[in-house]
């Protein structure tokens, strides 16, 4: 039922209240999903689900509505899709005329253009799709919070693991897509941050079909890396990375976009009550929960937590509450989740996973910070370069 409604594109879902009402508060949330051109990839094993992200937001509204009905608070979700080539900013303007709480899955430049709209002033926007560091840095916006972890949070998490394991001879293969380049840059930054150096980096240049050639090509390609402890892969579009595992010249672990991956969420996260969220999501969406679903779920839950505690759906009041010490969100990652006051990023542990299990969760033991260990991941206050967030 939910899924049909969402697929329909613009259904307003409104759950009514069955129990005695107190002060009626209504939070109307919109979710703008801007389609991005998908680059061709070698394998078609894992297409993105059509409701990626949307299903997370819908579950968030369901969870939050259950709480709301005991308090006289109601929530609605309006999912809007923008096709490739269509005007996302115009679509945002339209949505912002109707609601002041907006989740956005869009590229960074679209996000900042939306955040700068006159219609977006006084609204509260949640970035649930763009991992760019610049959005948490020099391109930050006061009305834009981020529930998806930044590339820096993910790469810091992975490099903490390398440091703990003393895998200090590190090499990397990076793809050519801008997303691959950005993740490779984040990994290099993290290596420097935690005192490691990249011994060698090679760019993935093959244009042959690796389903036939990987076994022959990858050993040769990785032969001249020399000795190393771990091979990092920057392949965020999931193009070639899957063909590198078990085909390397030396028998070495693979990490990054493939092998051991730092993620916001994965189906193998089961501790800290996560099995409950996984079960609810699967019942709801008929598939496993992914990072983009988690980011959208967390954004809606943050709104819900704000409305529950403050009794209002006013964006400014919600923003103030979310950035205050009074806010914490149970996010099924073993610690309360809070927002960074300097750039609006949701602090969160980063699971390090392989397809069968969680290997570790960052921050890893021993990485200390004067505020909270969670701030060893991603852009800290002095380095973020975000000047426009504080009001």
């Amino acid at each position: 039922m939910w899924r049909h409604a969402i697929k329909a594109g613009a259904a307003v879902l409104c759950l009514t209240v069955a129990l005695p009402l107190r002060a009626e508060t209504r939070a109307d949330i919109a979710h703008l999903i801007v389609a991005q051109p998908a680059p061709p990839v070698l394998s078609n094993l894992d297409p993105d689900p059509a409701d990626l992200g949307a299903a997370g937001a819908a579950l968030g509204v369901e969870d939050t509505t259950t709480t709301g009905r005991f308090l006289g608070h109601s929530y609605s979700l309006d999912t809007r899709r923008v096709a490739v080539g269509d005007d996302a900013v115009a679509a945002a303007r339209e949505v912002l005329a109707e609601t002041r709480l907006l989740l956005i899955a869009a590229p960074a430049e679209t996000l900042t253009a939306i955040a700068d709209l006159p219609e977006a002033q006084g609204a509260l926007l949640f970035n649930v799709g763009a991992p760019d560091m610049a959005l948490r840095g020099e391109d930050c916006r006061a009305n834009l919070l981020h529930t998806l972890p930044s590339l820096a949070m993910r790469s810091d998490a992975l490099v903490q693991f390398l440091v703990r394991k003393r895998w200090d001879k590190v090499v990397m293969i990076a793809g050519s897509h801008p997303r691959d380049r950005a993740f490779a840059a984040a990994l290099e930054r993290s290596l420097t941050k935690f005192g490691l150096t990249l011994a060698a980096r090679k760019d993935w240049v093959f244009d042959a079909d690796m389903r036939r050639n990987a076994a022959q090509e990858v050993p040769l390609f990785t032969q001249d890396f020399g000795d190393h402890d771990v091979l990092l892969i920057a392949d965020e579009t999931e193009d070639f990375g899957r063909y590198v595992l078990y085909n390397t010249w030396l028998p070495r672990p693979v990490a990054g976009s493939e092998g051991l991956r730092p993620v916001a969420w994965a189906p193998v996260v089961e501790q800290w009550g996560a099995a409950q969220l996984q079960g609810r999501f699967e019942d709801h969406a008929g598939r496993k929960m992914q990072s983009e679903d988690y980011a959208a779920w967390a954004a809606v839950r943050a709104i819900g937590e704000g409305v529950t505690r403050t009794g209002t759906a006013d964006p400014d009041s919600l923003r103030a509450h979310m950035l205050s010490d009074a806010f914490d969100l149970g996010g099924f990652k073993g610690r309360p989740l809070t927002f960074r006051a300097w750039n609006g990023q949701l602090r969160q542990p980063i699971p390090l996973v392989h397809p069968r299990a969680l290997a570790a969760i960052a921050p890893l033991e021993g990485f200390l910070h004067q505020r909270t260990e969670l701030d060893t991941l991603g852009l800290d206050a002095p380095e973020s370069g975000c000047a426009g967030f504080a009001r």
Partner: protein
Amino acid sequence: MTTVLKRLATICTASALLSAPAAAGEIWISNEKDDTLSVIDTETLEVTRTIEVGERPRGITFSKDHKVLYICASDSDTVQVMDPGTGEILHELPSGEDPEQFVLHPDNRHLYIANEDDAITTVVDTETRQVVAQIDVGIEPEGMAVSPDGTIAITTSETTNMAHWIDTETQTLFANTLVDSRPRHAEFVKDGTELWVSSEIGGTITVFDVETQTEKAKIGFDVANMHPDRVQPVGFEFTAGDTHAFVALGPSNHVAVVNAETYEVEDYILVGRRVWHMDFNADRSRVFTTNGVSGDVTVIDVASRKPVKTIKVGRFPWGAAFRPTE
């Protein structure tokens, strides 16, 4: 009915008299990831029996006369009823889906069960083995409590962050009160005048005045050299006369001792990893904590507030329940 009550009264009196010398007894532990129960002798502090049960056992509680043990077999979607003498499963009770925790009403007959996956509290009559009522509560119900006079049942919901107050006469909600994030456990104390609710992610215990359902106090915790994020109150139990609460603080690996009059924390005791629930021996001189991650039970001497022994049990010990054996 009256004969049943009379018989119960006799049994209760008899067992109270018998347990007065406060000697032998057992602590029963549910091992969530082993599908077993470990039975610990409270005198020798050794595991005397390991008993196979249904899938993913979590909440366990004895009948008031300790004649039967109720077991939430969460992944078997049932409550098992066991003869603790023989370890045999006598029968199963309908429980609703994914029963996690429950509480036995003072009438020794009705179980109030939190169905974690279904946002429901199920009330089961253990005699007729029928579901009497199902009550919609918040998401991920967990903590369960019943007032000593039996008039109020409480369910806490982990994601909704509330204590739901159930009128046991009508089996309907009459109040819903917010607490801090991820409420885990609830207990009535001081003759039912106070309700305590622990919040795992919020890191607090909220004390309610039961008559008005309003917040009376909030207890925070501060473990030395431990970030507040890791100090996560979960299960708690009270010493004789409800003077002090022993509070399991989850991944901080400590148990706090809280003065129940002043609401001040008096001590922190180091135990095993991810401490979860607990119960006392007969005279409440020792408390046994389940340590989920380290797979053991810490025995704490209540008077000195020192751990005296660590006992290896199964994987992910969860619940703890005491029964006298003589």
